[in-house]
């Protein structure tokens, strides 16, 4: 993965904005930001971000590549879409944030151990196994990510919610034993692989 990063650094030299435009989903919008700051002011998580969206856009223009891609800021986005609704320049800010996170992830320089990133990986892997999300396994995998002791503690804290879901038949304990999958799992995998191939070609990730 990191050789992808080296290649990108090589290819764009000093022009991080151009790199973002070509490789990040909706990245061509970054240059249209007019620095009004409405996105940062609208973000419910704004105060907790190291760099709110307005700053991220400015950093991209200022060529601060490592700081942007290694930042955990865009991983904090909860997709509430407040910024998109309010942006006077109609920038798809939420999508750009996810695009940046995804790009950093693919280059292998996204922050290690960032909870959102870890959960996203867990979710993806879980889903890829059977073509659907196994909620039992996903929950348990998530609780026990930091070892048995921490897992039990976290599970106990959430037991009322879990029991409630069991009662309401929102959680099926039988799914722990393998669980059910898609009818055409092979076809699903082929579809995802094709999508990845197209995206890689578009974004220049083909080796």
């Amino acid at each position, binding site marked *: 993965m990191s050789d992808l990063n080296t290649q990108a650094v090589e290819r764009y030299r000093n022009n991080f904005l151009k790199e973002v435009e070509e490789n990040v989903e909706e990245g061509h919008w970054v240059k249209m930001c*007019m620095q009004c700051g409405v996105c940062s002011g609208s973000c419910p998580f704004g105060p907790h971000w190291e760099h709110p969206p307005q700053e991220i856009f400015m950093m991209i223009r200022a060529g601060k590549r490592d700081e942007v891609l290694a930042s955990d800021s865009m991983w904090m986005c909860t997709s509430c879409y407040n910024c998109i609704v309010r942006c006077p320049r109609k920038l798809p800010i939420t999508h750009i944030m996810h695009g940046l996170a995804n790009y950093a992830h693919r280059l292998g320089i996204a922050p290690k151990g960032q909870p959102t990133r870890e959960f996203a990986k867990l979710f993806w892997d879980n889903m890829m196994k059977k073509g659907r999300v196994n909620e039992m396994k996903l929950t348990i995998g998530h609780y026990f990510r930091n070892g048995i002791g921490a897992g039990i503690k976290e599970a106990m804290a959430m037991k009322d919610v879990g029991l409630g879901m069991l009662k309401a038949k929102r959680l099926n304990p039988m799914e722990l034993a393998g669980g059910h999958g898609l009818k055409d799992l092979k076809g699903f995998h082929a579809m995802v692989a094709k999508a990845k191939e197209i995206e890689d070609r578009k974004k220049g990730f083909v080796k």
Partner: protein
Amino acid sequence: MSEMKTAAYICKGCGLGERLDAAQLSKVAQKEGKANLVREHDFLCSAAGVQMIRDDIEKEAVTHVAIAACSRRAKAEAFWFPTVAMARANLREGVIWSQPDTDEAREGTQEMADDYVRMACAEVKRMKLPAGNTETGHNKRLLVVGGGVSGMTAAIEASNTGYQVVLVEKSGSLGGWGARLWKRIPFQEPLKDPVETGVTDMIDRIGADPNIKVYLNATLAKTTGAPGRFAAEIAVESGSVAMEEVGAIVQASGFGTYDIAELPELGGGKSPDVVDQAGLEKLAVEAAARGQPIRRPSDGGEIRTVAFVQCAGQRDDTGRHLPYCSGFCCSTSIKQAMYFKDVNPAVDTVVIYTDLRVPGSGEDFYRSGQEKGVTFTKGKVTGVEPGSKGCTVKFHDLILNDKDAAIQADLVVLATGQVPNSGVNVDIPEEEAAKMEVKPVSILNLDYRQGRDLPQLRHGFTDSHFICFPYETRRTGIYAAGPVRRPMDMAQAVEDATGATLKAIQAVENAELGRAAHPRSGDLSFPSFRRDGCTQCKRCTVECPFGAIDEDEQRYPLFNESRCRRCGTCMGACPVRVISFENYSVDTVGSQIKAVDMPDEFSEKPRILLLACENDAYPALDMAGMNRIQYSAFVRVIPVRCLGSVNTIWITDALNSGYDGVMLMGCKHGDEYQCHFVKGSELANYRMSKIDDTLKQLALETERVATYEVAITDIERVPQLINNYAAKINEIGLSPLKGFA
């Protein structure tokens, strides 16, 4: 008009008949108002009512009409009798709509109405029908000073409207700054790319236009006269002098750029690679002539990065540079960045700004710049250091709060501002001006009592009634257009010049008919003075806000009728009260003041005189009436043309005849003035600040005279002020002077 015959008409419509005793009003008009003819009508502004008045004028030879109905601001078309003198008693907005409809209030309301009828009858008898002087000048040519985009627009627009133009240009060619641009910002869709300036077309059109006479290398040596009869002495560089007679003047003397040598910290004057926006236009024109991209001026090297520094020497709070924003420069930098991007998108162009201000259609153009990849960085440039190959631009990045941000640029463009070519500051005395380091050169060289050029506003921009009437200056018939009156871009200058030209055309047409120009457009009355009473104190010639009054050889005031705006400030100034208008004089107002029936000191009915500016305070009062906002029945309102026309004799007369208080309501004054006549309310305020002495002489409390600044929107505040004042009078008690008059 041989013999005076007065008629009073009492309207009973709009509820007047129900709320007021019309028979009583008729009796007042007859007995006290001494009207020769008194008629009541159920609906006076109806066709029948108006016809009744017309018939009286024709058949009964009525010469003076007092109409007791609605406000003078209402039904002006219906009550339009241009052949007679007319006064209006405001019984509707001013009485029944502003007083409660209760049994207790009935007496006070009727007293108010009676007084207004007395006042209208008294006023109209002192009025004369203004004749209007049609001999003030008939010249309808326009003189345009300055041959830049503003001046050329003015000339072309005037010619298109059918007026002849004399165009005087200081330099050897037309076009001004516009001719030096490579391209201009687009005025209309698509607002994407820089476009041809069109200046050459304008120059060609002027050259081919028989209506436009052009003087190049020429300046105004002397300008005399007034609207309709200006005489301009045009000095041409060759030494010859031409005389041109014109009716009005458009001053489009434009601007100069702020000298970048004043900005050494931004590299100004230190390296050829640091230029101002005009400098970049020059580089672009030269490059286009060579058919090549713009090269680095110092060594002809390739340009890969260009930095645009906004607000260079502008919006400065240190006092060393221009304090204002010139408004055009952000759009210009975007345009100039496109010069590079359109040729080679690989050139990095960075605009460093603190606030990007792109008026007009600039937002679309800004967006187009972003789409083309112009980078916009919010920051404040702290220094530009020229090096061997390009410069280092240091700046404080305001978004990332990085105080030591820096970029390398092959070329740095400083967005400096516009400095107006306003001529001489007439507010600085000649002796002081002679001591100045750089002696300003007069543009107009007016032969006026109040100075050689138009007055200046803040930062040296030429006069403009910027709040309400931006084209108007304080010199009637002379209109400032373009960046000389405020910073602006080319699109605005074109619009501005067009507006100023139309105002100039109005001025010559009004002058021909002997009518006032704005804001009392069409007014035929005119101030005259009684020469044998004049003490030559010069207050009128000094205080006239419009420089309308010169001095003759014997030092008497010399009124230039078509320069006059009819505000009456001279009338208010005159200590011996010899200045008057036919239909507005010390006497017309004075007689109204005295006509009011003054209850005695035991009546517990105070009387408050309110002199209200007819432009703002009076309409606000009318609107208060329309909204049924009530105010004290003790007040008697007299509209005045401007608070500046208030002669202090009215105040002393009022107090002497037993009024318990006098309120004056005029417009806001000072730098942010709203006075239609610019200086009227300010002068009134100054005069009233001296009234305390008079009050002390009369052994009266200083609260008996109060001056207020009000705006036309103060619909609720004005009644409140009246009520508060009435309460105050109640507190300090009735005037001790009652019964002595």
